[in-house]
């Protein structure tokens, strides 16, 4: 499923994301497939997502979260 569809508070595992500059940035920030990820909070109306990867807090856009695949 897509990260953007993940419900708040549910713990999931980062699955994969397409090769693109955005994701090379995410990688360089230490967001790796296989890591645990959860959505902590969302700004309503397709606003930004506040996610937690391991113990790091990261904000990203809804559109970006649509490209990130996770599994439960």
């Amino acid at each position, binding site marked *: 499923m897509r990260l953007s569809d993940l419900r708040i508070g549910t713990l999931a595992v980062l699955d994969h994301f397409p090769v693109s500059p955005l*994701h090379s*940035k995410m*990688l*360089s920030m230490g967001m790796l497939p296989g890591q645990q990820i959860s959505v902590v909070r969302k700004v*309503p109306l397709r606003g*930004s997502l506040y996610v937690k990867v391991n113990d790091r807090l990261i904000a990203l*856009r809804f559109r970006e979260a649509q490209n990130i695949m996770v599994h439960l």
Partner: protein
Amino acid sequence: MAEQVGKTVAIVGNPNSGKTSLFNILTGSNQKTGNFPGVTVERKTGILRLAEDLRVRLVDLPGSYSLYPNSADERIATEILINPGHTDHPDLIVYVASARHLDRQLLLLSQMLDLGFPTILVLSMIDEVEQEGRTIDTAALTKRLGIPVMAISSRRGKGLKQLKDQIGISLQSGPLQRARPIYELHEDAIKVLKAVGQVEASENLYLRWLWVQHFEWVPFDTGKSVDEWLAIHKQFNIEPLKEQVDETFERLNQMELLADAVVSRDPASRTFSEKIDALFTHWFWGPTIFAVIMLFVFQAIFAWATYPMDAIESAFGYLGSTVSASLPEAWYSNLITEGVLPGLSGVLIFIPQIAILFFLISILEEVGYMSRAVYLFDHWMQRFGMNGRSIVALISGGACAIPAIMSTRTIANWKERLITILVTPFISCSARIPVYAVLIAFVVPYERVGGIFNTQGLAFAGLYLFGIVAAFVAAYVFKKILKGKSHSFFVMELPAYRMPDWMNVWRNVKEKVGAFVMEAGKIILIISMILWFLASYGPGQNMHLAEQEALVEAADLNLAADATEDLVNAKKLESSFAGILGKSFEPIVEPLGYDWKIGIALITAFAAREVFVGSMATIYSIGSEEDEFRIREHMAKQVDPVTREPVFDYPTALSLLLFFVLAMQCMSTLAVVKKETNTWKWPVIQFGFMTVSAYVVSLIAFQLFS
């Protein structure tokens, strides 16, 4: 003392790693902030004193995550590190990593090591980790990485002496020798490098490999042209993005294993920051809290800045009267008392407000709150073609557009940054306040509303709001008009909340105030002198004749000495270059409800808005006692020579106020926009659309209400 500044030490690390705090504490006051040539990325350098006669140059490289850059900042850092010919190319790297998230910050470190830089790993914020009851085994890290590792706390000055000693030692010990790189280039990469012909034993393979991947934008000579590089890429079928991802994966895996071995983890509990964020980033409470904080910030500016501003004003009043009393009656004395001193005071008077606003903004940045605001508002800002970070610029615009526009450098997407730059001057800055204060009484009479508010205060707030609305409307229009890559990305770390580092706050305030004084100060001072000339001289015998005429008239009316002088000054101004200019301007401003006197004041205000008040004082011959209330009184007494109606009636004052909200009346800002965008095109467009919209809105307001 011998100056030995031959060696360069670079501070490298991720954003939010505590890099800047370390840089500040190591260099103290021995630092300079400038720009890297050709780009608007801040370049911070300083001198580090290691011993009585040993000094090295310290460079604070922009915070980066990797040598595969995603922003202008990161690109500069990468360029310096992979170009041995760069003036800032370091002999030694001090790699700063926050002890809190060590495992995520080792990617760039592993790249530094593979480039062969002698490196010291500095773990910052060690005290915070220890408070949480976690430990980091620095000895084990040293052993595994083969480099010195030290834990420090910049705030408490812990470990700094040892770090300085280590820098001295490491500088002696030449390039790093490691048995094998952390990331081994794969065979295909080696093949490429062989074909490129740079695989001598002494060469650093990883460095060459980075050149192969970054050939498109490296501005230095790699010995090959872009076409040659392209041919090589085609021949070997290189996919840079895939290479990057593979390399990053491999490095992160290795580093994570390493970090796991040395860091004791705390159980996955909700951290302090997350608990605060439950409220501060809440979809409803978050924006509410933001509004309250902003209200407090602007309230504080008004409340606190009054005292230093009054002090500056009276100091200049005293200085002016002392100087004019001690200098002989001559043109240069007038230039000083009527051109230079008012110009200087016009610059200094804004420093308190600007300093207070940036003091508060820096605190909000330092504690980590600003990134939350960016998170909360990013999608709203995006609808207007801007970026979450634009909010910082727009708030800063409430003090002065100059440092605000400079702060847009953190916005990576060009279109979003440009729109932010273009609309920021719509936000009412401190220079508009004196103008609003003088004019508002003509529009709304003072009345108490609901106990705590008053009508004029509300009107004031309304003008601010109008400016904000104008900024967003303009942004929306630009979003639709401007072409450019609209898809930008935004992935941002939300740093843990922490106490501000006061040294960083202080440096930031100093920098912003400095930017204002340097950029605006020069221009305001020069314009102030030009204005003095235009108002003091006229063509031919004009001025002299006007004086004679005024003296005759004064004698007829039996005026006292003071009033006679006022009349003489007013008549002289009318026949001066400024007066002639104002009169020729009258047909243009008449539809807005302004006479030639307001015309003069408006022309002068195009240099800087606040000059309007001073010009009014001169035009209505109030002399050197520039008191808001006296100016207002004089303005209220002005009547139209023909109709005998007051000049400053409701429609005229309203039209003027609206004009000041919207018009681009600040040459210093235009100069800064030119600097930041590297072309005159944008400042010209900005001047055009702001002034046209001001003219149209004022015209409509005047015609409707008169």
